[in-house]
């Protein structure tokens, strides 16, 4: 038992990712952890999206299943799993069967290279960002084949829209990413495509790339932030599944388990592109103000954040417990909410233990930044009206693409400033 603990300890303190250390056991553990974390995140997102949207529209949202509808996602999941799995008679059964799996595989494989911390990634690839963009672009194949295999008009139109949309916005996205890769080459380490390397370059250069060469980094970030919404088929660019025009777009004919696979893939793709944005522009696992607020005191203050967050959530639970109706019918729900609060408070207290605190900080900051993006997604859905398809294409090809090209050239010029200056002087001086 003691040996086992030491074994775990040695890996927690190792300075390599499991893939980098070549340890298959720890790689498997990390994969399972990431998978479980993602599933929990998707379930939480499901509940949060419905609640936040409801509150934005002055509604209550799910309130019946569990206190404040907390068990609603679980009820939904059970409902979806128990539903009959229908394959339309005229559909191409094989392709219809495979398509959701392509989407899910593409959405989950991406997380192999996402760095939750300097050592908290399944592996670190030399071509990390290229791998992420490539594999996440494979999900369009699943969507197109799903729409085609349904052998029905709405899904086919949805699939065609989605493929056109994703291919167009990939271009702008790639240009924004390349400008970041140019920025990494300015550091002492030289340029890199590895996800961990990109965050370390931000650490070495002392600023997040969103603030680099102001406003160039910011412009690149905005291009990516718009393109990533279009890539994941979310509002206001959710034309492939526009309810009012295409019923449900490419997944109209899907039901039950297969539909829930599309749902899972959509949300994990959102988390994936958000983590690309966080890694590339917002410093990945780095805490805010790593240079301005230095010293052990500030380190301590920032490492208290995870525990404080969970305690705040627990306080919210207890506040709402106190506000629950006092009628005996609500007794179970009140107790449930209080119990949920106690669990959150316990997690918060555990996160204050120094040994845990030190190891969790990186993951916390990464998750917090990704969470902000998730909120943005919901916020977009609550506020923006849907674009028309020609407007969507116009934004992609006539606004984002030229901006991205100019941005790339400007980044290269600014980055090469000194060298260029010396060369110009050499040309002018005979």
């Amino acid at each position, binding site marked *: 038992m003691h040996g086992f603990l030491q074994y775990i300890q040695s890996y927690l303190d190792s300075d390599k990712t499991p893939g980098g250390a070549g340890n298959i056991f720890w790689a498997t553990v990390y994969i399972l952890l990431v998978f479980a974390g993602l599933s929990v995140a998707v379930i939480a997102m499901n509940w949060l999206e419905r609640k936040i949207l409801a509150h934005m529209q002055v509604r209550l949202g799910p309130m019946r299943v569990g206190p404040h509808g907390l068990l609603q996602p679980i009820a939904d999941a059970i409902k979806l799993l128990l539903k009959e799995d229908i394959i339309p008679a005229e559909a*191409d059964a094989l*392709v219809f069967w495979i398509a959701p799996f392509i989407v899910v595989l593409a959405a989950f494989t991406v997380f192999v290279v996402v760095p939750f911390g300097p050592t908290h990634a399944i592996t670190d690839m*030399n071509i990390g960002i*290229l791998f992420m963009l490539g*594999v996440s*672009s494979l999900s*369009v194949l699943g969507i197109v*084949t799903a729409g085609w295999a349904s052998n029905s008009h709405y899904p086919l139109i949805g699939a*065609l829209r989605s493929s*056109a949309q994703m291919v167009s916005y990939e271009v702008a996205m790639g240009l924004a990413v390349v400008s970041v890769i140019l920025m990494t080459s300015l550091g002492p380490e030289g340029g890199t495509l590895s996800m961990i390397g990109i965050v370390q370059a931000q650490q070495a250069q002392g600023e997040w790339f969103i603030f680099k060469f102001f406003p160039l980094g910011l412009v690149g970030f905005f291009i990516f932030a718009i393109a990533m919404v279009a890539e994941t088929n979310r509002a206001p660019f959710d034309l492939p599944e526009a309810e009012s025009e295409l019923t449900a777009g490419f997944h109209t004919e899907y039901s039950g388990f297969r539909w829930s696979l599309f749902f899972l893939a959509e949300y994990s793709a959102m988390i994936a592109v958000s983590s690309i944005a966080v890694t590339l522009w917002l410093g990945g696992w780095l805490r805010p103000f790593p240079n301005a607020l230095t010293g052990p005191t500030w380190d301590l203050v920032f490492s208290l954040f995870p525990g404080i967050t969970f305690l705040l959530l627990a306080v919210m639970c207890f506040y709402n417990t106190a506000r629950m109706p006092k009628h005996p019918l609500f007794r179970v729900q009140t107790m449930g909410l209080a119990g949920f609060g106690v669990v959150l408070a316990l997690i918060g207290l555990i996160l204050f233990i120094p040994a845990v605190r030190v190891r969790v900080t990186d993951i916390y900051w990464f998750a917090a930044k990704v969470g902000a993006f998730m909120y943005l997604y919901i916020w977009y859905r609550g506020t923006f009206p849907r674009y028309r398809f020609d407007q969507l294409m116009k934004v992609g090809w006539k606004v984002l693409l030229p901006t991205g090209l100019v941005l790339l050239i400007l980044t290269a010029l600014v980055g090469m400033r000194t060298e260029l200056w010396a060369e110009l002087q050499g040309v002018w001086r005979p």
Partner: protein
Amino acid sequence: MNPPVATPFFFYLLAATMIAGGILVITRKNAVHSAMALITTLLAQAGLYLMLYAPFVAGVQIILYAGGIMVLFLFVIMLISIERAEKERQFNKQWLVGIVAAGALGGLFIAVYTTTTKGKILFPEGQLTYGETQNTQAIGSLLFDRGAGQYMFAFEIASLLLLVAIIGAVVMAKKRI
């Protein structure tokens, strides 16, 4: 650097996937099925590139071939109706000649690969003992560097080719110019 794990197993697995995919590509009636088989082949080939220590080419293969060109293929297959094409004859009249010609080519391949000079096959394995860490940077400097960049001109020509291809594709696919 870690030594590669189970190289023969993965090589034969990926090779079998590629051959099976290739056979499906040329035998399926339905073009979408063919395209999906081709995608499988391309992804397996990306895996083989990784085994050959060429991660950048593998990434380009995934992002360009599987994510770009194949989406274009699927898009076009869906634009043109293929309901009728499935019920027609799949192979053309000179299929026998084609197979004989391919068989002759295969014979040529076998003849070359089994040729021995002084008792050795033509391609012995070179020793490779370093990792892939600088692969992307090395390719970049071959393409762009001032000193070592031998392919700068070829790169510019490739960009010109792409420009011509864009214009050509637009001209071909447009209804009226």
